[in-house]
């Protein structure tokens, strides 16, 4: 009986997390269009609802109502499978992130943790699921039977394999300091001292390498070679329309959200907010709420950085991309591991 209740509670928690994530993602799209508009000296969508707040729902309606075109000579099964893999892989990482500390529901003594699953190898789980996500793009490019799609798919897989290495290695410094792969424990270790124990202070090089590799992993500007519209029309999703296109779009934004959450969790203290533990009791409702909002705020700052970069930087050339990943980022990540290991050996 207990397990049944447990399973139902987990389902509820997963649903809540998904709804929150999808809402944030929907408004990230809106924020991207408004911020890009601001950077480019124009307005952006501001007509649907007050200042455009209902635009995401209008977009969704449009995606659903548009004609869904399947190319005649595509490989149908894989053509349908690809967006499913991309979206599913993006959503599946959501369950291991600690969104906040334990939170006590007001007027009761029930405490619920704001993390869906404690997983001994949470970090490796995230990396594993992310590496599955590349199949969505590759298979989409192959099954569309379109040369632009295929080139986009090939580029993306080459790019993701190359930058996955630097991404994984840049996190090893944090793992060495924490001594665990459990994300909740890594966040717990960063609490206290009002932000002076956040890993960013001890791992600045690791953070820079992570941030660059993460942007490349999510195929965003300046590393958006897989969908370089000046060369490849729209890259791997050229032949996709209506809701299937929307799924790729969704997957890209969820991936942005995921890597931002990982950066926050590993380098910027997760849900820890400085100062507030002077005034509030750990475990009180308000403490939990402010911590969770602090987490969301930090993630949103990263999302803003993404949009900012998109409005600012031009695109890399493909050979520049490859040599940057292999000849600069990878050695820097290794150097970071070496420095961290030496510091631990001599000073701790």
């Amino acid at each position, binding site marked *: 009986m207990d397990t049944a209740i447990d399973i139902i509670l987990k389902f509820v928690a997963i649903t809540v997390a998904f709804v929150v994530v999808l809402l944030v993602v929907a408004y990230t799209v809106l924020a991207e269009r408004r911020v890009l508009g601001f950077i480019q000296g124009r307005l952006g969508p501001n007509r649907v609802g007050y200042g455009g707040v209902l635009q995401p729902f209008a977009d969704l309606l449009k995606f659903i109502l548009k004609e869904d075109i399947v190319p005649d000579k595509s490989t149908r099964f*894989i053509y349908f499978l690809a967006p499913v893999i991309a979206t599913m892989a993006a959503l599946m990482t959501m369950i291991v992130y600690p969104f906040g500390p334990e939170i006590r529901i007001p007027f009761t003594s029930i405490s619920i943790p704001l993390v869906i699953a404690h997983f*001994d190898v949470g970090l490796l789980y995230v990396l594993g699921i992310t590496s599955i996500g590349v*199949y969505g793009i590759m298979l989409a490019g192959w099954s569309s039977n379109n*040369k632009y799609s295929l*080139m986009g798919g090939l580029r993306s*897989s*080459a790019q993701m394999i190359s930058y996955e290495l630097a991404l994984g290695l840049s996190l090893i410094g944090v793992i060495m300091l924490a001594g665990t792969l459990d994300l909740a424990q890594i966040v717990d270790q960063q609490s206290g001292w009002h932000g002076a124990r956040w890993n960013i202070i001890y791992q600045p090089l690791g953070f820079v390498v992570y941030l660059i590799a993460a942007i490349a992993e999510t195929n965003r500007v300046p590393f958006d070679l897989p969908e370089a519209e000046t060369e490849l029309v729209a890259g791997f999703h050229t032949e996709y329309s209506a809701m299937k296109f929307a799924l790729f779009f969704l997957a890209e934004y969820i991936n942005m959200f995921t890597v931002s959450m990982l950066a926050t969790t590993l380098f910027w203290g997760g849900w820890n907010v400085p100062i507030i533990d002077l005034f509030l009791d750990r475990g009180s409702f308000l403490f939990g709420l402010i911590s969770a909002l602090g987490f969301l705020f930090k993630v949103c700052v990263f999302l803003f950085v993404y949009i900012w970069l998109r409005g600012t930087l031009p695109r890399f050339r*493909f*050979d520049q991309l490859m040599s940057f990943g292999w000849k600069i980022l990878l050695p820097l990540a290794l150097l970071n591991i070496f420095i961290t290991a030496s510091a631990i050996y001599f000073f701790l």
Partner: protein
Amino acid sequence: MLALLFILFAGMAIGCALAVVAQRNPLYSAISLIGVFVSLACLYVMLAAPFIAAVQVIVYAGAIMVLVVFVIMLLNVEQEERRRNRLKFLVPAAVVLAAVLIAEVAFMLQSVANPTPAVSNIGLTGSIGAQLFTRYLLPFEITSILLLMAIVGAMTLARRGGLLSSEARLVPGAQQLPLSMVDPRATPDDLTLVETDSSEEAARLLGVDPRNTERD
């Protein structure tokens, strides 16, 4: 509950494994193989070995199979599908070998009547790390040297005779491939053929240093 999950993932693993062999299209086989790896990872999680499960997904499903799919995408898949099966004469041998394997498994299951409960911490990150760097340090280091040799060997083979001139900016993934290679379903009319008398002239047309075109 655990038994139900075991049946689900074991069934998935066996179904996908059958599909790997049964499919004529190599890409479908590769996708089925990814399915096998993922179901195996789920089984590892159920056996309290989360680290092995994560590595299974990251290394096999996430890295090796990506390269396999990458290569298959560049091959002429449809031709392979249409060609008739030339290895039919090997079917009896396969049946015999499968029978031997099943007999072996049956013998194992029978001889271990009362299996001792597995050591529960064998697949955790800490225990694997401790074992690798103490008891199995020498095999671990030898394996890494072996891998390094393989990388160096691959680099040497790939660069032999095929060095590109400094002007030709050809990089993996960005080469200009003939359309028939990229897309098996394209009509051959899309290609414009240029006939040359010698490989030197071909190299000159392609913008590659002619001194480096000779293999070996």
